[in-house]
């Protein structure tokens, strides 16, 4: 990661800097989707029978489903038969047993992205799982974590080595029937991260997965599953980038979080997929299902996301507050510039008694971008004394962008209290001129104003990520003010 001393100014002058392509031989499936492809994926990964069956059930269900049309986004129809559903950097022999055996070109890629995988060079306190196209290329600090009983590995590895855990928790929060993209993911997901924090353990370091799409015409379908047992806690970071390509690429991930009694999971994302160029050509279609289940009493799940990339974002990290006194939080900054479109928000479903949720959403629209907040707060009959507070703020930069808010509130228990606050503001020429008159450049002024607007969310991010997020915002909004 670049050092904190790098100034925003130097970064705003850059274009999307992660747009390079790594030249590695890939082992890819032919384009198209059918049962044979799914069998191929499962075979490549030496999966046990239960996984293949689950995938096939998901696929058959997917065939009966329609792509959702309710999001406030527009894009040409996706030809699902034209995408490649499996691509892996070709392994020599049996594949790497340790990081030392990983193709140097891949290690180099992550170096370039600022994610060194060599443990001794790695910043202390963060363990990384790196996913390249469809497969995990390496996980760091495994041994140190294992000493505490923590399992942190690629999903493929978890399926082989901890099938009982995977069987128990896979699909518990996001069943394959959940929605169109979740069903597709369930059928073809190739890898992802698996974290298991056993009873009473506080994970001693941040866990992190870094997703990279490299191959052309490839969809990326990863699946992350995080389980925190009774009294356990973990903070998890997710980062993503992709090369600049003219074609749109599909990313349909699923993330499931499960917190048992008194457990807490903090999940932070800085999403920086390639957003397309300034004319809206290319970019990632990001259709992601993220959901956490506060299964036990006093459990807590917190989502923090900074969404700057992707041509289209369709994503609602949610919390099912099942356990009594459980807490759900959602902090989000979503930025759209040029022709980007985002329809993002959250769902807080209160089932247990005294459950609490907080939603803070900051939407920033610039260029011709369209930004929608869509959120559901649902208080079920059983959720006595549930409380929710939502705050949705939108900021407009320029006059060709749009901000939209779609809040849904369903309350079935009269003891509940639900608050919703919303605001829309525009970075005014007055504000910019005021900053200019004090010696600040326009770009600097915009960065300062936008960062001020997002402060409440940034403070929820782990330190290192907060710095990164601020810089990203600067880059994303480059040139948004004339």
């Amino acid at each position, binding site marked *: 990661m670049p050092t904190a001393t790098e100034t925003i100014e130097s970064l705003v002058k850059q274009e999307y800097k992660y747009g390079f392509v790594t030249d590695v031989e890939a082992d890819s499936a032919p384009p198209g989707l059918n049962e044979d492809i799914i069998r191929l994926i499962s075979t490549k990964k030496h999966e046990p029978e239960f996984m293949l069956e689950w995938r096939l059930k998901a696929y058959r269900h997917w065939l009966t489903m329609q792509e959702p049309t309710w999001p406030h986004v527009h894009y040409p129809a996706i030809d699902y038969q034209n995408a490649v559903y499996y691509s892996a950097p070709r392994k020599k022999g049996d594949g790497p047993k340790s990081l030392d055996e990983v193709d140097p070109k891949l290690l180099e890629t992550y170096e370039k992205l600022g994610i060194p995988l060599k443990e001794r060079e790695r910043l202390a306190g963060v363990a990384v799982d790196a996913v390249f196209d469809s497969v995990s290329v390496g996980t760091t600090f495994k041994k140190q974590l294992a000493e505490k009983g923590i399992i942190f590995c690629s999903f493929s590895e978890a399926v082989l080595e901890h099938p009982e855990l995977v069987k128990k928790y896979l699909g518990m929060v996001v069943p394959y029937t959940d929605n169109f993209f979740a069903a597709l993911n369930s059928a073809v997901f190739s890898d992802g991260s698996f974290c298991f924090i056993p009873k009473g353990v506080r994970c001693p370091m941040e866990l992190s997965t870094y997703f990279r799409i490299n191959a052309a015409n490839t969809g990326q379908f990863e699946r992350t599953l995080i389980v925190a047992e009774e009294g356990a806690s973990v903070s998890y970071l997710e980062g993503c980038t992709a090369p600049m390509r003219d074609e749109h690429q599909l990313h349909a991930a699923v993330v499931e979080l499960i917190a048992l009694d008194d457990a807490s999971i903090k999940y932070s994302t800085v999403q920086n997929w390639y957003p397309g160029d300034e004319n809206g050509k290319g970019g990632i279609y990001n259709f992601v299902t993220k959901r956490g289940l506060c299964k036990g009493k006093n459990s807590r799940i917190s989502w923090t996301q900074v969404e700057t990339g992707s041509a289209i974002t369709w994503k609602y990290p949610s919390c099912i507050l099942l356990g009594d006194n459980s807490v759900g939080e959602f902090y989000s900054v979503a930025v759209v510039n040029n022709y980007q479109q985002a329809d993002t928000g959250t769902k807080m479903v209160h089932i247990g008694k005294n459950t609490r949720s907080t939603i803070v959403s900051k939407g920033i629209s610039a260029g011709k971008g369209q930004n929608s907040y869509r959120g559901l707060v649902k208080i079920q009959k059983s959720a006595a004394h549930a409380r929710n507070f939502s705050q949705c703020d939108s900021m407009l930069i320029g006059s060709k962008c749009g901000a939209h808010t779609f809040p849904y509130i369903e309350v079935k228990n009269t003891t509940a209290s639900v608050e919703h606050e919303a605001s829309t503001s525009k970075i005014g020429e007055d504000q910019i001129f*005021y*900053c*200019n*008159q*004090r*010696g600040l450049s326009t770009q*600097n002024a915009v960065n300062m104003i936008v960062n001020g607007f997002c402060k409440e969310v940034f403070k929820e991010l782990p330190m290192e990520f907060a710095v990164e997020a601020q810089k990203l915002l600067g880059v994303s909004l480059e040139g948004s003010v004339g």
Partner: protein
Amino acid sequence: MSKAILEIKNLSAGVEGKQILKGVNLTVSAGEVHAVMGPNGSGKSTLAAVLAGRDGYDVTGGEVIYNGHDLLDLDPEERAREGLFLAFQYPVEIPGVNSTYFLKAALNEIRKAKGESELDAMEFLTLVKERMKLLELSDDLLKRSVNEGFSGGEKKRAEIFQMAVLEPKLAILDETDSGLDIDALKIVSSGVNKLKRADNAQLVITHYQRLLNYIVPDFVHVLVDGKIVRTGGKELALELEAKGYDWLLKN
């Protein structure tokens, strides 16, 4: 003869095709305080805006020499970095941006432009504490976002406080007295007076004479319908107060 900081020569400017300034001439030298007075709509605030480089104003004629070179050629932030400061009539609120952070960024931009090293947080705080005394400002204001939720008086004091920290070569005070009660007016004026030095200058724009009881100008200019119709010493302000602008309009 002291050195001219600002020379406005036959300046004409307008907004959306409407001519507002119609040939303004004004020279401000180091160590001087000038007051520009005039009735509403005479072009006082337009003059301030054009000097600071605000968007939307078209300069249709004349020139402005600042520090020996063409001012109108510079972007607003370049003017600021060269020591031109505008105390706004209506300071804008910038939610979420901490006042101290904002002012530190501004000061360091100006220092960078001068080739000086940037101040770190500790050095900056020392400076701030010293300058705060000038304006009897509570440090609570500095912990808040820029101008957010400030009263009218607090905003004006904060403007002069920024001026105290940034130490401009030329400070333009645009109707700084408007919206101030007498106590605040005294505090603001005494702050401005303390900032007066032999190597800087102040251009005070005001509608009323009362500010000039506290900030005593060396020269008073009367702007009417886009032109300076009369220039005199501080006694001209008193004459205007007694007779009103109509007195000059009739002549």
